[in-house]
């Protein structure tokens, strides 16, 4: 199976090369068609062979690649990537069908299209940071040319803007990667690029929890702003905290151990066994950030859970000035920016409307359906698991960004008169739910954010296709010059309703599941023990604002629907070609997918369940 997985990644690339060598456009097209069909079949085989109870990656391959810097070729699939892989291969086939009538150098087009597919699959399946980065960049290049050559009138501007924006994000990611590469020796004994999710990374034991960069409990030391020693001492009424820290600060290990023992023994004498437990618990709590879930703390000193090194290491980092914590904060933000650009989130979103407006229809489908998901996927795969503590500290900023994107994107969508631009801004709004859901770090939030990616992959691809169908006939996308299309194309109108109402979050369609779960998850962040428990008001304000987003969404979608589909049909519609079978096929598949996902969301959740359980637990939530 792991062979199949790797073959699936590279088959499109091989097909892409062959496309260039094909005798003509038609041959290249049918070659590309069969390649995508086979890729889709292989992804379905992965689904069939997948073990749904396992949390870690499956079908892993690990081969040394650039030994000098420990780069490995490491791939595998887990619950986080599986459904995105199927989404990618499925949309690739539909996008290919949508590009059936490409006339401008079809050989190059289909070849680039297949290269793009390799890049996208690689991003979702790579388990080595370096490899991930390579695929992340690889997917950029074909996209650049596909927009820049086959796009609309301002294609060059849009393509460069897209390229540079994402490249800027990639540089941020590169910095984080270099930092992680440098810091890993301290964690796992050698420089490595292996992703935290990998089940066979380095010298891991047989535990079921995913290997995090550092041991799960130890990792918690990065948990927060600098420990206020003075305040704690004041509260405790003595200098014990300082003594303990001083003892920890001693360079010589055995000396330090002895000193710490002495401090603890003193405290034991003063406070008794229970008192010492209490004292340790308080000490540990004090260095935790507000709102953090209470941990199982060493209260029973007799049993002496002192080997729970969680707090000891935490103290060490604090005593040394919390250096890793500084790095974690920087790295969190840099990698977040890299992925927020891709997602895209306000204020890094302005490449998206331009790229979408200029891109040809199938490329818009892929761009909205798959490429945006790389951002959300990478946040879930890299940013949060690597730096959960920074994520907890800054959750309100990130969630605020998500709420802002929801409302801002919806407002901007409402103001558009270009149909495609409206759909593009709706993507900004919908991706805000992804940011919000991830940021609140609740189970429902994560499930919702993830489902929102899949659901939006279906609904946005469908919306862009619907726009494309009309654009092909009208050669304009001006909302004020359309109207009455429902009468001219009744069945098309019906499918359009499925697509746009799925985006609107109508229950029974795929958009609802993500939205409602993210909303519930946001409110859930205020429940005791969750990250928002310390700032309930903020959680509720975020939740309420996100809930109000559904009004705006209904506003712009219905207004658009009225302007395009309702009213009397225009004269020129008589000249419009009827919708072809191929077009109905694409609409039908996407529409049925939207309905099925909306009714049976477990289709996705059954894949993610085990993996999410492991991930959330390792981040200390859930």
């Amino acid at each position: 199976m792991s062979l199949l997985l790797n073959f699936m990644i590279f088959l499109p690339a091989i097909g892409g090369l062959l496309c260039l060598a094909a005798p003509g456009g038609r041959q290249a097209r049918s070659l590309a068609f069969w390649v995508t069909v086979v890729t889709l079949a292989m992804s379905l085989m992965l689904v069939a062979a997948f073990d749904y109870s396992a949390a870690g990656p499956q079908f892993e391959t690990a081969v040394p690649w650039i030994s000098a810097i420990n780069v490995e070729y490491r791939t595998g699939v887990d619950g986080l990537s599986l459904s995105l892989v199927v989404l990618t291969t499925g949309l690739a086939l539909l996008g290919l069908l949508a590009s059936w009538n490409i006339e401008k150098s079809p050989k190059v087009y289909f070849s680039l299209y297949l290269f793009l597919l390799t890049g996208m699959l690689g991003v979702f399946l790579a388990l080595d940071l370096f490899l991930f980065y390579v695929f992340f960049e690889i997917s950029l290049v074909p996209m650049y040319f596909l927009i820049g050559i086959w796009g609309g009138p301002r294609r060059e501007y849009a393509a460069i803007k897209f390229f540079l924006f994402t490249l800027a994000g990639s540089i941020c990611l590169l910095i984080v990667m270099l930092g992680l590469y440098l810091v890993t020796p301290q964690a796992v004994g050698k420089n490595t690029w292996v992703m935290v999710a990998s089940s066979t990374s380095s010298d891991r034991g047989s535990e079921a929890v995913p290997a995090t960069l550092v041991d799960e409990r130890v990792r918690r030391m990065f948990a927060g702003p600098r420990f206020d020693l003075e305040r704690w001492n004041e509260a405790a009424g003595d200098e014990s905290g300082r003594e303990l820290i001083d003892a920890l600060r001693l360079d010589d290990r055995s000396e330090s151990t002895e000193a710490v023992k002495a401090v603890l023994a003193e405290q034991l004498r003063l406070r008794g066994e229970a008192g010492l437990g209490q004292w340790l618990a308080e000490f540990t709590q004090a260095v935790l950030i507000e709102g953090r879930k209470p941990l199982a703390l060493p209260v029973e000193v007799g049993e002496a859970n002192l080997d729970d090194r969680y707090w000891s290491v935490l103290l060490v980092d604090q005593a040394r000035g919390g250096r890793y914590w500084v790095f974690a904060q920087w790295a969190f933000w840099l990698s977040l920016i890299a992925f927020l650009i891709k997602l895209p989130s306000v204020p890094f979103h302005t490449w998206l409307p331009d790229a979408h407006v200029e891109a040809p229809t199938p490329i818009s489908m892929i761009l909205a359906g798959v490429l945006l998901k790389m951002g959300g996927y990478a946040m879930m795969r890299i940013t949060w698991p690597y730096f959960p503590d920074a994520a907890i500290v800054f959750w309100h900023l990130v969630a605020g960004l998500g709420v802002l994107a929801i409302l801002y994107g919806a407002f901007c969508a409402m103001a558009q008169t270009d149909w495609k631009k409206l759909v593009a801004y709706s993507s900004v709004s919908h991706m805000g739910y992804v940011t919000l859901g991830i940021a609140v770090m609740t189970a429902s939030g994560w499930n919702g954010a993830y489902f929102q990616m899949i659901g939006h992959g279906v609904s946005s691809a469908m919306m862009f296709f619907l726009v494309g169908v009309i654009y092909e006939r009208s050669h304009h996308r001006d909302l004020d010059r359309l109207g009455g299309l429902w009468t001219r194309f009744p069945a098309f109108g019906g499918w359009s309703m499925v697509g746009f109402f799925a985006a609107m979050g109508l229950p029974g369609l795929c958009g609802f599941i993500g939205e409602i779960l993210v909303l519930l998850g946001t409110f859930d962040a205020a429940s005791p023990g969750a990250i928002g428990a310390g700032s309930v008001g903020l959680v509720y304000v975020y939740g309420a604002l996100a809930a109000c987003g559904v009004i705006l969404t209904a506003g712009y979608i219905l207004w658009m629907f009225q302007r395009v589909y309702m009213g009397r049909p225009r004269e020129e519609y008589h000249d419009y070609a009827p919708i072809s079978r191929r077009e109905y096929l694409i609409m039908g598949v996407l529409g049925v997918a939207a309905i099925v996902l909306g009714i049976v969301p477990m289709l996705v959740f059954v894949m993610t369940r085990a993996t999410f359980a492991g991930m959330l637990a390792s981040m200390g939530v859930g």
Partner: protein
Amino acid sequence: MDETILTLLVLAMLMPLAGTVLLLCAGRMIGDRAGWVATSLLGFSFLCCVTIWGMWPDRGHRVLALYNWLPITADGAGFLEVGLFLDSLGVAMMAMVSGIAALVHLYSIGYMRGDPRYTRFFAYLSLFTFSMMGIVISPSLIQLLVFWELVGLTSYLLIGFWYEKRAPQLACRKAFIMNRVGDAGFLIGLGILFAQLGGHLLLPATEGMLMADGNHIKSMIGALAATEAAGQVASSHAGLNDWLGLGSTGWLSLAGLGLFCGAVGKSAQFPLHTWLPDAMEGPTPVSSIVHSATMVAAGVFLTARIYPILTPEARLVIASIGLITLVMAALMALVMTDIKRVLAYSTLSQLGYMVVALGVGAWGYALFHLITHAFFKCCLFQCAGSVIHAAHHEQDMRRYGGLGRKMPWTAAAFGICVLAISGAAIPLTTLGLSGFYSKDGIIAGAFNFGFGISGQWAPGWLFWFLPLLVAYLTPLYMARAFALTFMGRPRVESVHQHAHEAPPSMLIPQLALAVMAIISGWMLWKPMIEASQPVMQVMGIQSFAWLHEPGNPGMKAAHAWLLQGAGWIIPLAFGLWWYRDGLGRASRVAESWAVRPIHRALLNKLYFDVVYDRLISGMVVAQSRILDWIDRRIVDGLVNRTAHLGSDLATATGRFDRDVIDRSLDGAAESVLQAGGVLRTTQAGRVRIYVLGIFVAILLVLIVVLASFLPIWRASAPSAAATGRPVIWTFESDFVSGHRHASGSLGDSIPFSAKEESINP
């Protein structure tokens, strides 16, 4: 027994759904038979529902099926559930919905004949019926929300059925968005409950259901009772309560009112009521079922379902909202001249009665009124539809008059329903039409509540006075509609000339509903109120014994007015006399200086539309334009400016390159320039500089950021190097050991591992 009921229920639900799918997929083949196909499917569905009612064993409640739907916990074990749930309330609602839906389908065969989208109409109508049934059988709030939105969708589609015209377009959009405003509140309430109750969104009524694993399902009420009993409300919900500053049940009030917001939207209560009159742009059969009998009552149904979580404060707000709607709508119904709008405002007013009933605690009567109102209001709309049909789509009652002679059956049915909605009864007895039984109970409840609180709260008397006042207004505005339409001389000859009695397919449902309007109160009163007892018990609603016996001393005040005849006969007779030959007399009064401003304000719907359309919706659009401008000019402008900065930098670098380095390295530069020339031909030349600039800028950033990290690495690296051994007692080494010993057995590299000697006493 349960299996049979389950099968019947599933059949009853699947019939309309099958109708929708069939008509949408094979509509062209079915063609004109679509109406009969859909109607017979609905008829079958109705039979199933009636059978369920007949079999309904112990008037209890049972969850017939429950499925996991949305995962809400990290371990993947906790779910939001959906399923099939029935209690006596649900059984009655199912029978009512399917029965009325079948009649409306039948009616539509005649009414919609010849419409170009005939098939699609029945598909939508069947989908609506399915969604409405889905609301009724929901065991959980999440499923309720799903079908709640689906009825909203079908309502949207049906209002905008004639979407070529401008008015239906605007009306359907308005209806949807107004509902969404309410739904935002619904979502907030749902979120609060979700967070505070740990994800249990099952309805209170489902408690104690027949599930194998009784522990798994906890109702909200159970969870609440447990926390309240343990005195934990303050602690476990402290965060929200503190923030709200509303006392220990503040969060619950907020959650209840949030959910009620959804009901306000769906049931068109003040201040979200404006969509319902506009919704009359839809075909009249739609108005008769969606916008009077069933969907708009869903809000009342929801409020009834969540009743136990409504705190006294929340109930006071609910009663007040109902009161405002009740009075406002009745007054507007008194001045409107469009027959459907009069009925729409009458619907609003009656919905106000139901909401007031819930607010004041007359739970069973709210639902009873929901059912009786469904019959007579559906019939009224169908009669209005027949009139409109006969009058060539003329809806202005000023142009009617004397239609009673042309369409006697319709006039009779309309007249019966006027009596029913007025709460007519035989004086000095307890025999009356359906509206009498239900409205009487509501007014009695309002009396009880109003007198109860008027001692503590000055405006409390309004809670009994206004429902009573509107009980007088109702016969008046209904008599007005009847008189203007059916009595007197024809006012416009062209309308009157071709008017004709409705065809049988329209007349039969009208008459059937009229019969129900007569007997349903008398027939259903006992079963409904009895049936509501166990439900109320499960939900922990106090039942007021006096509410259930007309003639009981507790009801004296209400009955003194209503039972003994004065309540309905006087205003009705006055209305019929006053409007017997048109609006002449009334308009003279309306033009008098004292009444004129009020009349104008009412005719303009109290300017709600002006405020909403011009002010709020205008502000939203303006806001969107402003943000769009900001997005293009400022956010994107910043991006472009950065890019230009990069390109300027690159130009400068390029100049340096050309003027300084280039001259010293002639040969190499030559080839670079050539390469540049090639690039220039492909892209307009700017690109290269652009990319170069960005790259230089990025490199600079990279260097700066990495440099800022340098101290970290430097600080840790030499310590290892200096000591010449693996650093053990630094946090770095702990990573190593921590990782190796993650499974639990910690080596002696841990400072406190020698715990036994030093710490154990």
